[in-house]
């Protein structure tokens, strides 16, 4: 006897649930829980990480992110304006810059800056190798942010510029008082996204070399991992990253929903 279409659909759904649960149970049974608990969730090791994992590692991660974000934002504005400039060489330079640093792995840029700045230019950035690495991160951030900012500027209706210029405002004043404030409002979600990406990319700074006081979360966790021969520090670092990133991504999602409603 042929089954009714609805019955067949229900049977299919139930068998999918059953398969999925069977898979989870299988993984759970196959896992060596005591070993995982000891290797990844060792409370004694976790306790030893405090307070340094917060007051040094997390603090540095946030600090480096803020520095890279601020630097990237400032440079990004400059390159966005250059890319929209009427002066052709400005546009070429900005395009080359953006393509260069978006096309290279961030790790390579950071590593290269740690060498190029002191050797080629004789520049010794504050903070030692991490400082030089941070400059690399700023360059990478500026390339990505320039494109976001350019899109924001172009999203502001032309009538806004026309109204401002008609009042006698110069192109500079129009950009600063009328276009940029509106453009930035539009790009808050992608900029928040960029902040989250940067926060994660600070983990690449280890390649430049770190001192005890300049370790960020990932290098701190790696070193602690080696020191205690236990992976709990990695889990702790992961949790601390998520404590910062998840609220930010939720915030972005909320902003995007709100903007979609306003439109």
């Amino acid at each position, binding site marked *: 006897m042929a089954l009714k279409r609805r019955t067949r659909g229900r049977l299919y759904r139930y068998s999918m649930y059953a398969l999925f649960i069977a898979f989870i149970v299988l993984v759970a049974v196959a896992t060596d829980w005591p070993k995982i608990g000891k290797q990844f969730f060792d409370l004694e090791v976790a306790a030893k990480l405090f307070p340094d994992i917060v007051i040094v590692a997390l603090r540095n991660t946030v600090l480096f992110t803020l520095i890279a974000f601020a630097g990237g934002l400032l440079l990004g504005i400059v390159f966005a304006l250059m890319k929209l400039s009427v002066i052709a060489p400005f546009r070429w330079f900005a395009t080359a810059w953006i393509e260069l640093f978006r096309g290279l792995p961030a790790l390579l840029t950071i590593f290269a800056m740690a060498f190029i700045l002191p050797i080629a230019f004789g520049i010794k950035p504050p903070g030692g190798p991490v400082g030089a690495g941070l400059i690399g991160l700023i360059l990478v951030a500026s390339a990505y942010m320039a494109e976001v900012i350019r899109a924001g500027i172009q999203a502001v209706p032309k009538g806004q510029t026309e*109204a401002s210029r*008609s009042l006698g405002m110069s192109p500079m004043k129009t950009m600063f008082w009328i276009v940029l404030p509106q453009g930035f409002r539009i790009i808050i979600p992608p900029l928040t996204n960029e902040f989250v990406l940067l926060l994660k990319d600070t983990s690449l700074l280890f390649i430049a070399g770190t001192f005890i006081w300049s370790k960020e979360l990932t290098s701190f966790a790696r070193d602690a991992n080696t020191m205690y021969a236990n992976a709990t520090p990695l889990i702790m670092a992961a949790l601390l990253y998520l404590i910062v990133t998840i609220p930010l991504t939720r915030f972005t999602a909320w902003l995007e929903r709100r903007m979609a409603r306003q439109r």
Partner: protein
Amino acid sequence: MSTDLIDVHAPAIDIQGLVKSFGENEVLKGIDLTVNSGEVVCIIGPSGSGKSTLLRSVNLLEDPTDGHILIEGIDVTDEETDIDRVRQRIGMVFQSFNLFPHMTVLGNLTIAQRRVKKRSKDEAERVAQEMLARVGLAEKADAFPSHLSGGQQQRVAIARALCMNPDMMLFDEPTSALDPELVGEVLQVMRTLADEGMTMLVVTHEMGFAREVGSRLIFMDGGHILEQGDPREVLANPQHPRTQDFLSRVL
């Protein structure tokens, strides 16, 4: 500075042989037009006739391809002219209002006063309140544009232009984006301005306004001025066949 020397005897707007092309497309084909101080000149014509382009050329929102535009004797098409200074004397009102949405009404009215005219905050706000009262929106100073009706937004836009104490006002289809019941309040403000002696150049579809307020009516088509004269005359007794055809379709 040359732009400070206003020739009081010069016409407010003197357009000579204005040509404007967008690529291959010639939109204005040699326009000559003089607007004297205190005149209210209305421009009508079918869409694509070049009337908005003509208006936008006066304060150089469109860069003329050829010809000269003199504002109170100053050639704004001259590369040496400081266009930002001249624009302060020309108020502009757009079809789509173009208020700054990130600022309150008061912010909209004071930003250029403070950044361009370098007025103090108190002075700028005093002028802003005075102009808001003129357009009947004194109580809306702290509102954001998005909370105002279209008619109110356009009146704020007029007040914003007035805050710069312009010698003349350009209106680019100021009521075309408005719901019919909101047109009257904007026209009333414009009528009051005209009565006070403001020099006005108005691109419009409001034939009633042109007839009652305008001191001259211009009919444009195909990038040319085809007919001009007293509004009552032109509307009642158009001479050019194209004017007759246009008016027969809109009236």
